């Protein structure tokens, strides 16, 4: 009998968490494709680099198709079409179709504001498996102000409705920070009202644009505690109805996050210009040479052998206090981009870690900024950012 027993917890293990997969640096299960940096929104916490790729540098339709075929061939199972705003590319339907034809599971990560019902329907017909729509708040006053785009919130609600009408599963992505955390209970309700399957409560991570806007975005410790309490309560209440993924801001943590599952271990993304990156913020680290799919190397070769991917892999690159730390293979010293942004050296311990000599300073600074008066945004754009008019903030 024992050979047919099904232990509920083990029979459906989440593949990413299997240790063996990570340790061999096997090809990641999912890859993020930032097919363009163009976007009509100007969110001050945009995860794109401050130096955006111009459209002239973007990979062509044929180049992206070649990338998709190559990814499927080497064992990638899922691709996320992201940006910028992926629907800003006119060939998105063609790319989704090509990805589906090669057997890839396709996600669309979108702001939704450029979509028409017809376009969404074409994407569904092309085999799109899942739609993720970002929301900046619960009502258009705040949401449109954060996005720097009038009418955006209303359009997002409409597209979310079309998504479900077309029988596509919906994830609501809510990026949270000091100026909208009070809306979290209503955001959870909004996700239910929109018939979403999944909600991402993603606190802003402070690199790039968000780091420039940290003083306007950093939550207070009390806000964050309340946020965690609300998420835990909602997860219990909505089990089986709404999956909630939760990302906390790590400035207030004692232990750093295992960023990207460790550098070059489980994840890579491809930038609009075709560079293969260990994370979407990696280009903020200067002095690393990220190879492009336009180079004469295969994607698998870049993943396995390129200098940039191997630089911070494993533990050999570590300095103290990481080097002798008992957690070094648990969190891999936190986030390399954050270490670089806050200390100037990506090989330093991420200051989010309590063992970093800078932790106390960073924590105090975040706390002070959270209590501060600054609420004006520096909007993200190709011009290097535009400060919000004072009377709008």
């Amino acid at each position, binding site marked *: *009998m024992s*050979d*047919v*027993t*099904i232990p*509920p*917890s*083990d*029979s*459906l*293990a*989440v*593949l*990413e968490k*299997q240790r063996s*997969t990570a340790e061999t640096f*096997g*090809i990641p*299960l*999912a890859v993020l494709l930032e097919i363009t940096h163009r976007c009509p929104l100007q969110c001050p916490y945009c995860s794109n680099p401050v130096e955006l790729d111009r459209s002239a540098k973007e990979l062509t339709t044929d180049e992206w198709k070649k990338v998709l075929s190559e990814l499927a061939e*080497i*064992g990638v*199972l*899922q691709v996320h079409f992201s940006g910028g705003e992926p629907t800003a590319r006119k060939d998105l339907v063609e790319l989704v179709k090509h990805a589906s034809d090669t*057997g890839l*599971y396709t*996600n669309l990560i979108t702001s939704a504001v450029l979509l028409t019902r017809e376009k969404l329907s074409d994407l569904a017909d092309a085999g799109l*498996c*899942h739609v*993720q729509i970002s929301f900046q708040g619960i009502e258009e006053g705040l949401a449109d102000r954060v996005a720097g785009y009038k009418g955006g919130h209303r359009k997002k609600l409409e597209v979310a409705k079309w998504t*479900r*009408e077309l*029988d*596509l*599963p919906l*994830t609501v992505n809510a990026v949270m920070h000091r100026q909208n955390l009070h809306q979290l209970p209503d955001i959870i309700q909004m996700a239910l009202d929109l018939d979403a*399957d*999944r909600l991402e409560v993603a606190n802003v991570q402070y690199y790039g644009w968000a780091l420039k806007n940290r003083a306007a975005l950093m939550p207070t410790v009390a806000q964050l505690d309340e946020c965690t309490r609300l998420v835990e309560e909602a997860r219990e209440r909505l*089990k*089986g*109805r*709404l*999956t909630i*993924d939760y990302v906390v801001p790590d400035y207030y943590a004692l232990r750093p996050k295992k960023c990207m599952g460790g550098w070059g271990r489980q994840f890579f993304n491809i930038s609009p210009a075709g560079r293969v990156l260990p994370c979407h913020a990696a280009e903020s680290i200067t002095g690393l040479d990220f190879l492009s799919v336009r180079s004469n190397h295969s994607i698998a070769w870049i993943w396995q052998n390129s200098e940039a991917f191997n630089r911070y892999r494993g533990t050999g690159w570590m300095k103290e206090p990481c080097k002798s730390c008992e957690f070094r293979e648990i969190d891999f010293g936190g986030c390399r981009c954050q270490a670089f942004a806050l200390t100037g050296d990506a090989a330093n311990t991420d200051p989010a870690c309590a063992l970093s000599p800078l932790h106390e300073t960073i924590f105090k600074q975040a706390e002070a900024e959270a209590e501060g008066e600054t609420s004006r945004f520096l909007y993200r754009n190709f011009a290097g950012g535009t400060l919000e008019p004072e009377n709008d903030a």
Partner: protein
Amino acid sequence: MAGPRNISVSEASRPVLPRHAKLRYDETRKVWVILAPERVLAPDEIAVEVLQLCNGERNVGDVADQLAAKYAAPREAILADVIAMLQDLADKGFLTEIREKTS
């Protein structure tokens, strides 16, 4: 619209994977996987067998009958295991069921 969610799996239910959860054999890793939004699940051998039988026509009782015959094992134990596995998948949001039209 998509099939119902928040389902409670019983002997009479006719469960089926929803459109956004795809059962597939991964040639590279030589394992079966369930592809879902932001998740890749690794169902074990029996879970794969159960899910392949869940075609929207068979109910859970039929599935248990087939497995009990195949493995010459007590039906009641199999049924309990199958329900537990499917309920776990349902709780994760990756299972729906076919219901008779009421109108």
